[in-house]
């Protein structure tokens, strides 16, 4: 009833004015800005792809060939990357390290975030803040003391050097993300479960975690991406070529002196970004809902 009244009242005002839903207005306010945004964001990917597919003589000759297009596509660079280097091995190592570090970090973060958000203990706020401060220490400073520890523990040049150091920045990050998510789950649900006879761990497992799945997934995506792209620790703690991660290996093995093998380098970067892109595209719905929404009954 009230809707109908409002519509009738609103109609005369609209005539003669460009409606919000008109095509020109939508193009100007939505599609044009969006298009600019998409072009800026996706151009690097495009550049990466065409560089991968260009033969060398085309790559360095801007006068005869338009640099924005490929004239005679070739898979020489891809073949070189996959068969003349240890790229598949690097990819596998990176994947294993990222997954292991992510699982470890999510596990620790769930426990930390739950305790800080839900258990009433003196100073829980301060613990939360302290964890956040740990996140603010830049890795470029942290890697020096960490290097000492890695050496002392005999982990140098082993994947565990990375699996155990990545959580230093992943755990604070995931903990804060999960604190926010746990906060959005009504506390009454846990009180109700408590009366129903559940223990703290049962509540966490059967009530809180199933409701926090979107939050867990977005924390997982963040952690996975951060470990996948991590550079400085991977550069410092790994020496053997076959144990390197993709970001480091591509740079150290495909740049020899001042000889940049651009085609292979870009192929390496392209293939390195595909798993992350796939990962995101599968979980994009959860990811968006965890950043925007809370649990609704």
């Amino acid at each position, binding site marked *: 009833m009230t809707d109908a009244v409002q519509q009738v009242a609103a109609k005369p005002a609209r005539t003669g004015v460009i409606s919000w839903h008109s095509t020109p207005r939508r193009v100007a306010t939505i599609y044009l800005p969006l298009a600019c945004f998409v072009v800026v964001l996706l151009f690097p990917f495009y550049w990466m792809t065409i560089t991968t597919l260009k033969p060398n003589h085309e790559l360095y000759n801007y006068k005869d060939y338009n640099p924005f297009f490929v004239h005679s596509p070739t898979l020489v660079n891809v073949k070189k990357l996959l068969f003349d280097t240890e790229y598949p091995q690097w990819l596998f190592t990176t994947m294993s390290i990222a997954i292991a570090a992510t699982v470890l970090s999510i596990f620790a973060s769930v426990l930390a975030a739950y305790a800080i958000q839900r258990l009433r203990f003196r100073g829980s706020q301060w613990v939360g803040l302290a964890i956040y401060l740990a996140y603010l220490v830049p890795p470029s400073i942290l890697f020096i003391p960490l290097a000492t520890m890695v050496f002392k523990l005999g982990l140098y040049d082993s994947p565990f050097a990375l699996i155990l150091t990545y959580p230093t920045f992943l755990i604070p990050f995931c903990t804060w993300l999960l604190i926010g998510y746990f906060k959005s789950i009504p506390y*009454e649900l846990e*009180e109700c*479960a408590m009366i129903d006879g559940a223990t703290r761990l049962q509540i966490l497992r059967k*009530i809180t975690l199933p409701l926090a799945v979107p939050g867990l997934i977005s924390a997982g995506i963040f952690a996975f991406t951060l470990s996948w792209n991590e550079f400085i620790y991977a550069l410092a703690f790994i020496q053997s070529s076959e144990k390197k991660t993709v970001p480091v290996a591509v740079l150290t093995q495909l740049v020899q002196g001042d000889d940049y093998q651009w085609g292979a380098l870009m192929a390496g970067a392209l293939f390195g970004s595909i798993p992350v892109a796939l990962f995101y595209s599968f979980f994009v719905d959860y990811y968006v809902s965890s950043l925007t929404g809370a649990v609704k009954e």
Partner: protein
Amino acid sequence: MASVDIIDAAKSFGAVRVIKGVNIPIGDGEFVILVGPSGCGKSTLLRMIAGLEEISEGQIRIGSRVVNDVPPKERDIAMVFQNYALYPHMTVADNMAFSLKLKQAPKSEITAKVDRAAQILGLGPLLQRYPRQLSGGQRQRVAMGRAIVRDPQVFLFDEPLSNLDAKLRVQMRTEIKELHQRLKTTTIYVTHDQIEAMTMADRIVVMHDGIVEQMGVPLDLYDRPANLFVAGFIGSPAMNMIKGSIRNSSFETEKGNHLPLGNAPAASEGRRAIYGVRPEHIHLAGDGIPAEVVVVEPTGAETQVIVKAGGDELTCVFRERITAKPGETIRIAPELKVVHLFDADDGRRLSA
């Protein structure tokens, strides 16, 4: 089933004392309603009984057991929350079975109990739905079903009807009352709505500012409120209260008018007091006090009229249809047997 005894219980949050030592004995199978304005501590008290808040001082007993240090899950109670607190990721059946599954009850027993609860509450066709697919009233029933399957010693309700619309609230009120008559489980129910309290309770506990103002059967509270707070809180529309003093067996208002008294309390000549009369206890009378009509609000069955008599504004509720217009004068008289007198200083009831 069990009795619940609250003995000198107090609760402090830091330096703030929200429950200031209350004593409430609750009999086995009784339906007791804690009622009071928001912030009076009634929900906190309920949460103390449930074990969700620690008891700062005093004792709470369920049956013969002191439960001060017993965790909620071992108190054998069930609680219905204001927002129902249904687990959103479980179906109605799973919601109701959750506590039994935690107890690792046999599957056949779980199914039997869930089916019985569903049948009592008419939830049969909804068992496989999720809470988000239910209406407010259905969610309310599921929350109650979850309590029923536990077969607990005590039911606790924390303002369970306040999220429902007015019509549904009246219907659920009846259902909860019927449920109690059927199951006879000791029930403690918190509400801020005095109508809910009056209609459902065996006994009402009126709380205000962390203390118990009065405890008693509903009509007792209505007929003989112990103090001004209870007098003003119970009954709708609220009781008319006029300041003045007792003179020559009648009541002289501050503005110098005289109101009749049935039997003035002994040795009270000249005492400052408050004259209380409920709107429904004022009648039209040919020889009554002249009063100017301010507002007439017909509700169908009865008519609520606000009048001005001798400078004091009074609310009256008449069973008769009133044709008087604002500005006209009608004659009214209070029913003397049910006039209440309260001490002007401490608000306590004076008349016997």
